[in-house]
């Protein structure tokens, strides 16, 4: 399951309501000045990618470009403009954006069976296709019904998942767990983390797809592939634990605490790479997708490594050899990892790091690291001129933290044409239209987790849609119908079966009226509506839940 499906039901109702009142009272503007500028930046960024032909069929960036990243960014655009609101997905998108999504999806459905495994591209296509499908994107029967070259969404996803898992390093070819779980670019001939992070992200999103009960041309549900994905993700998690390394390429911040660990561009065991900011950050979510949580010791070790070297400006000498190139990905992977932890809602144990602590440690504080950066102070910045006039203090009141650090850095970087490559641009891979860097920027601004499924409690419901993500509750029971499922409900659960004989009947109703107009403390079970007083409202509520006609007893 995915956040897109549930979120867009809410979105759709809000859109309809907005339409209903538009003529009467106008729309409510709830966004802060910073959110308004972020929204503008997102819209400009999307338009830039569109004008570059990234969403075309065929995409201007080709089979091996960042078409999947760009498509995910378009799916995660917020119709409201507020980054904390639900992503638009397909169903909530404008007609223009839906047209772009259809051509982008058609391109994938056409090309999957005409390409072979390539980790970067296949990972992107898996999460883009999953997000598209789960939010109601049309399938082959609409996009290209008569074209034999096209696959259906399910067929394309199956192909991508199967060839990705087949290309993973695993037994019997690689009998030791320390060598398993990785991918190389097009096969299993190296232990590369830049490709592994994409393969893992794609598989985690595919898990959302296969865990869904939705369908398009074919049903999406596929328990066997969920099992296969879980096994692949577990192998990667293990590899990132076994290859956890100390040190960094920056000698002044080499080893800062006894328990910190990280990961470089290749496994330490095979290559000797010291940890880098971006690969350690993606190593956090790789462990989460593999079944770890915030209190898993190695997750904490990776978080310590990043916290001790946190940066929002550039990667300094903390990115192995590709410090400038990797800034966009570092921003997305580190924010995404923390966002997944926030969604899971598991509190950090005493002494452990929480998901909101990057940037809270001054450079001089122990363990000192001269290149470490603190969170920006929103009130000290003027509005970037590309968004209009605004003196220092224009963003005052915006919460400090990783999101502001990254989002402000990115919108400050944006050019008038929407590309995030102007002021302070640290450089990137130089791919067509800087599509990967621009997509990373958009995904950070949108607080994206890339559609990946973390199932912290292992109940088969992904955290982003689980009403109690840290406690297994596969049935998602929710007596009060609020945001918390019964498994997380601090209030006593109501049941009209007051006499606990297994049904609801007139005896139960009369037990309530016998306590009529008394405080709930007399018998909390009788206060069905939880308003603190037992009254006929509770009695009649239970009449409506009677097991038999007219509340008859058995």
């Amino acid at each position, binding site marked *: 399951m995915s956040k897109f499906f549930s979120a867009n039901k*809410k979105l759709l109702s*809000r859109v309809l*309501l*907005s339409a*209903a*009142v538009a*003529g*009467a*009272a*106008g*729309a*409510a503007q*709830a966004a802060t000045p910073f959110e308004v500028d972020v929204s503008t930046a997102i819209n400009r960024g999307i338009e830039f990618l569109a004008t570059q032909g990234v969403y075309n069929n065929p995409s201007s960036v080709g089979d091996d470009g960042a078409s999947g990243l760009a498509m995910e960014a378009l799916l995660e655009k917020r119709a*409201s403009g*507020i980054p*904390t*609101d639900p992503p638009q997905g397909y169903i909530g998108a404008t007609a223009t954006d839906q047209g772009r999504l259809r051509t982008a999806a058609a391109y994938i459905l056409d090309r999957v069976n005409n390409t072979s495994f390539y980790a970067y591209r296949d990972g992107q296509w898996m999460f883009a296709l999953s997000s598209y499908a789960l939010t109601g994107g049309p399938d082959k029967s609409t996009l290209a019904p008569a074209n034999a070259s096209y696959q259906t969404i399910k067929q394309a996803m199956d192909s991508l998942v199967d060839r990705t898992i087949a290309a993973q390093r695993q037994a019997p070819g690689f009998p030791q767990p320390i060598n398993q779980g990785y991918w190389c670019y097009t096969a299993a001939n190296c232990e590369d983390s830049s490709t592994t992070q994409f393969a893992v992200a794609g598989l985690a999103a595919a898990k959302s797809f296969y865990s869904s009960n939705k369908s398009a041309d074919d049903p999406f549900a596929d328990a066997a592939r969920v099992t296969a994905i879980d096994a692949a993700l577990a192998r990667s998690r293990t590899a990132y634990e076994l290859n956890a390394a100390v040190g960094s390429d920056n000698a002044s911040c080499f080893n800062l605490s006894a328990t910190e660990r990280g990961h470089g561009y290749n496994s330490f065991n095979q290559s000797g790479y010291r940890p880098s900011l971006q690969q350690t950050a993606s190593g956090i979510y790789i462990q989460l997708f593999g079944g770890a949580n915030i209190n898993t010791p190695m997750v904490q070790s990776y978080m310590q490594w990043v916290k001790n070297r946190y940066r929002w400006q550039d990667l300094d000498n903390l990115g192995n050899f590709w410090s400038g190139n990797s800034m966009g990905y570092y921003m997305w992977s580190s924010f995404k990892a923390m966002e997944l932890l*926030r969604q899971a809602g598991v509190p950090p144990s005493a002494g452990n790091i929480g*998901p*909101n602590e990057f940037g809270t440690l001054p450079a001089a504080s122990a363990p000192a690291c001269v290149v470490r950066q603190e969170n920006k102070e929103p009130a000290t910045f003027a509005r970037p001129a590309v968004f209009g006039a605004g003196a220092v203090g224009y963003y005052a009141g915006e*919460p400090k*933290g990783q999101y502001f650090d990254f989002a402000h850095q990115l919108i400050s970087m944006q050019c008038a044409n929407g590309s995030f490559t102007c002021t302070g641009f640290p450089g990137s891979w130089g791919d067509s239209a800087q599509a990967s860097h621009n997509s990373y920027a958009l995904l950070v601004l949108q607080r994206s987790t890339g559609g990946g499924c973390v199932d912290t409690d292992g109940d088969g419901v992904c955290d982003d849609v689980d009403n109690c993500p840290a406690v297994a509750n596969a049935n998602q029971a929710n007596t009060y119908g609020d945001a918390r499922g019964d498994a997380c409900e601090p209030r006593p659960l109501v049941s009209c079966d007051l006499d606990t004989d297994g049904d609801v009947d*007139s005896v139960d*109703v*009369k037990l309530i*009226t016998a306590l*009529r*107009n008394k405080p709930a403390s007399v018998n909390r079970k009788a206060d069905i509506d939880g*308003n603190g*007083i037992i*009254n*006929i*409202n509770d*009695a*009649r*509520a239970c*009449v*409506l839940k*009677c097991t038999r*006609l*007219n*509340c008859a007893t058995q």
Partner: protein
Amino acid sequence: MFKLKQMARAAALVAGIGLGMAQSVMAAPISVSVVGAPLSVNSGDFFSVDIVVSGITTEIVSAWDIDVAYDPSLLFADSFTTYLGPFGGFGFTDNDVDFTIPGLIDAYLVSFLSDLDLTDLQCPGAVCSPSLTIASASFTALADGSPLVELVNWGDTNDVKGADNKVIFGNAPEPVPEPASLALVGIAMVGMLAAPVLRRRKDAAKA
């Protein structure tokens, strides 16, 4: 077949409620009142009053809890009769009356019938009576005077319930129809829209 007929009537009722909303300027508010009290009595006089729910042309009554107040130095409460017929009759209701407190009759009724069945009883042919007598009280005057019999203590402990267990009188603000101003509707709906946004923004601030 019977069920289908009931459902059709319920559907008609629901449609009627919708129509009522659309024409709220025309609809009378729901009220509960004491009907039939004499202006003055002489010692030894006997009289009865009815407890009447009015303005329910598009609504049913499914449960009620009321307090009837009177001057115990002037009146003696002889009896209190709950009309069970519209609620399913004896056996399909839970009801009681309490005279413990001098000057106060505390009575309630909860129907065991479904909303559909209550609709069938109270709104035959999908036409609800504009008023429903739910109970009667009889008094004997203990002295000469002007008797005041009134309903009191509306709130958490006293109200009248309608379909879907909603409070139609008492606990919730009275449904006072206002001019069907589009602007007012708009303001309400903007509030509905803003609420989830504000909630989310608050949550984000915590994160």
